[in-house]
């Protein structure tokens, strides 16, 4: 019998694995997906912008800002 293509075998391995998951696995997958949504869609976008990337256009300006902070912090 001809063996399946390696990519198809990998695909079916994951596909069947997810399809045949037990109750606890389904529950933790729901937790994972909700968690990732909250982290990357809500927290990252609305609450955790990268301050230096958002505030300055290029690395030179970012360096200047940090240098300013380092020499003026008390």
């Amino acid at each position, binding site marked *: 019998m001809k063996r399946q293509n390696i990519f198809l075998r990998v695909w079916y391995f994951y596909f069947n694995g997810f399809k045949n998951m037990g109750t606890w696995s389904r529950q933790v997958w729901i937790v994972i997906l909700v968690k990732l949504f909250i982290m990357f869609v809500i927290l990252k976008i609305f609450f955790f912008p990268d301050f230096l990337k958002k505030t300055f256009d290029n690395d030179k300006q970012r360096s200047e800002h940090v240098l300013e902070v*380092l020499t003026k912090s008390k």
Partner: protein
Amino acid sequence: MIEIADVSLVDWSRAQFALTAMYHWIFVPLTLGITFIVAFMETLYVKTGNEEWKKITMFWMTLFGINFAIGVATGIILEFEFGTNWSNYSWFVGDIFGAPLAIEGILAFFMESTFIAIMFFGWNKVSRKTHLLATWLTAIGANLSALWILVANGWMQHPVGMKFNPETARNEMDNFWEVLFSQTAVDKWLHATSSGFVLASVFVIGISAWYLLKKREIQLAKKSILVAAIFGLVSSIYLVITGDNSTRTIANDQNMKFAALEGLYNGSEGAGLVAFGFFSDNSSDPNNENLKDFNLKIEIPNILSYMAFLDWNAFVPGVNDLINGNGKYGIMSYYDRIERGKVAIAKLTEFKEAQKAGNKELAASLKTELTSDDFQNNYFKYFGYGYFDDPGDLVPNIPLTFYSFHTMVGLGFYFILLFIFSLVFLLKGTFEKKRWLMRLAIISIPLAYIASQAGWIVAEVGRQPWVVQDLMPNVAAVTRISAGSVQTTFWLFAILFTILLIAELKIMFRQIKIGPKH
């Protein structure tokens, strides 16, 4: 516009980072240890062909899966916080952290998507040996993944292998191997991972003891206790060795932390180890509120000197020796360090002004001076001290560091006894008759988490006020944003992580109640 960071902003930013890191660390150590326990169990299954071992392996693998899934990505929030709350720090260390964190990310992705998938989906689909290999690689991969994070943390505790570039305001790595094999990083990795092995062993013994108390899953419980007690005992001995090495490294590289974790105010030759102690509310020094008197202490002579320098009579500096200096033992005072730090900051300010004014010649000459070995070793090395005027601000919270250290060490030795008793009574065939031991084993599960968190409190509170030891204090590292917004996200995280923890506990308790048969 550069505003001076206020205390409330620094405190809330620290509180938020501590909260996130501590919640993240609830999930990590169990993963580090239980993967090895599962690998040992599966090895026994493959070697003996006994289906009971397969059932046991699958049961603990399920609990690992729940813990792993709930904990996965909780560490990413720490990276969000670097960019938002600690942007100056993030920029300052960027080049050093880039490589270890990138390796960690790639390793974690491949490990999680490949080996863990084979562990959970691969039963009866791949050969027994391939499955076993995936289980071992998951255990090794999880611990290697932790290596890179701990290398980054080790660098913050003892920065090496880099040079500061004043033009970019960043530290640039000039020796990757020095960063990777720094004694602090190696100690940190070995100690943190072995603490995870001990925690996981206590977890397995505790849950198995619960089954024995309920008189169910007897074979699973006994076999699990056997594997976990042996693994836990060996790991505990290793934990003591790595902890001992770590203490010596701290005594050399972070001597203020070392003095704080022992509550040592005045150094001495042949210094004693405080095995047990309680602080009073009174300060022993009117100039430093942080130096509380001991109400009660039990001290073992000379041990501290030996622990720190492998010499029973070596001099161990106390907090006051570090603040005021000690000429006899060649200890530079914090007053001198502050002066040198201010010189370094002034020189960097001159460089910045020259750049702003477009005076390229002066800027180039100042850069040469700033990056010279002489300036780096004599002034830039103390850069962070320049932000302070009062050396008292450079002393960490001593009671918290002391209590955390003694809690961690005390519980560590208690776990050794737990493993020995478990093993002895199991081999004698009387474990399930010792109800006190079974109850003790169950109560020990939260104690293992307390010990683990206490270890991180020692590591992080003990090195305050530094974010990067001697170079960057938290006041310079924090982003100038409003303290109110940090408070908001602090409570958001507190709620989110508490929900995650409740979800984990609910799913895990239910799975434990169901047991391995289903």
